[in-house]
């Protein structure tokens, strides 16, 4: 039964749960806890799928008569299980590795170019106003701000952004980017991007990736609000939101209504995250191991 339970769990965690969580509004009140919950769901879904693949042949074998258990069927069943479980794990780690290499290469390249293009006279002027990272100013008429994460991070703003933002708003934008860099939000994103690239169709991995992306922005918004002010943060978002983009709209509404976290909600979310990983382990995996290991002769 363990394999059936685990397969069902994997399906639920890969499908309906992400859909519901991505639509819910309450995670926006506790972005940090909600991100942990997303991570717990992703880990639990992968583990459940792997566990199900491993448990299935063992349980089939155990259902057979004792004299049928040895020989070719055993080998075949165990091999299939190993291959299935291995495929899931290898696929995920393969994608993660490739993504990590490409991301770092692209980033290094981008950092080189940004350094070449820097309007040194302007970045020197605003240096030290709210950011510890190296600041670069690009010329161009499009107001824009971003960061290049990594071991030698850069915060980049365009001249148009400097002209659009007032001093407080600029400080809020820089604090926002610095929060991304300090907390290495890019690593969290990378995990979910990899998950989506590895399992793009079956799982609701795109919803997970996009929802986590927005929560990370909100987390950085909160850091900037704490360091600067709600007004400055709202002003900065307004200045950049020329598209009426729904994600920016949600962030703006949050800042304007001065949303602040609820400790109860955060605690509940962390507990849910722990439960998603712990409960299946205790309720399904451990009982299965307790039967399977002695049967396999590992624990007599």
């Amino acid at each position, binding site marked *: 039964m363990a394999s059936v339970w685990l397969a069902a769990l994997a399906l639920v965690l890969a499908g309906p749960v992400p859909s519901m969580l991505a639509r819910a509004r309450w995670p926006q009140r506790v972005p940090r806890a909600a991100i942990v919950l997303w991570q717990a769901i992703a880990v639990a879904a992968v583990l459940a799928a792997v566990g199900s693949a491993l448990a299935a042949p063992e349980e089939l074998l155990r259902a057979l008569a004792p004299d049928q258990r040895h020989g070719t069927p055993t080998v075949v069943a165990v091999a299939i299980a190993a291959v299935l479980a291995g495929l899931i794990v290898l696929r995920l780690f393969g994608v993660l590795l490739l993504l990590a290499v490409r*991301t770092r290469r692209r980033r290094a390249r*981008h950092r*080189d170019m940004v350094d070449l293009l820097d309007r040194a006279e302007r970045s020197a002027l605003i240096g030290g106003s709210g950011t510890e990272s190296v600041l670069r100013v690009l010329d161009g*008429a499009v107001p*824009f701000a971003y960061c290049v994460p990594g071991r030698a991070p850069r915060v980049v703003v365009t001249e148009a952004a400097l002209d659009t933002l007032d001093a407080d708003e600029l400080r809020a934008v820089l604090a926002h980017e610095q929060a991304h860099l300090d907390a290495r939000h890019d690593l969290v994103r990378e995990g979910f991007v990899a998950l989506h690239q590895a399992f793009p169709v079956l799982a609701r991995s795109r919803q997970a990736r996009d929802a986590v992306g927005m929560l990370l922005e909100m987390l950085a918004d909160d850091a900037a609000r704490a360091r600067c002010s709600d007004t400055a943060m709202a002003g900065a978002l307004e200045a950049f939101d020329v598209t009426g983009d729904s994600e920016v709209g949600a962030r703006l509404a949050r800042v304007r209504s001065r949303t602040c976290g609820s400790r109860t909600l955060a605690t509940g979310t962390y507990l849910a995250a722990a439960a998603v990983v712990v409960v299946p382990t205790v309720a399904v995996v451990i009982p299965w191991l307790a039967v399977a290991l002695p049967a396999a002769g590992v624990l007599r």
Partner: protein
Amino acid sequence: MALGELERAVMAQLWAAPAPLTVREVHDRLDRELAYTTVMTVLGRLAKKGVVRQERDGKAYRYTAASTREQLAASLMLDALGDVGEDRTAALVAFVDQVGPEEAAALRAALQAAPPRPSAMPEVPQPRTDGEQSGPES
């Protein structure tokens, strides 16, 4: 002087020049106390990065910027915007991940503006030695 600053200064000269420059010309235009070989090294590094093109002119090499300042800036911003559809690598984190349609159009137009040379690549130039490098996105 820091290498980065030197590279920036050399690029500024190449961008300002109407025609390809020799190492000697770049050296003379850089209004600093620099060894000729230093300038040569810097130009070599920039060529390796793909931002400078090297062409043979008789016995000497002449150097020119592979794309204009505006093109390079526009391509970086498009890269940061993840303007490449689905397969983002999340290498960069933008404050807002979209700009207005006019701005986006302006960026793309900047890329397509007449390149300094017919063969110029309107993209973030890639290192020349790198065979399977993925572009701004792949």
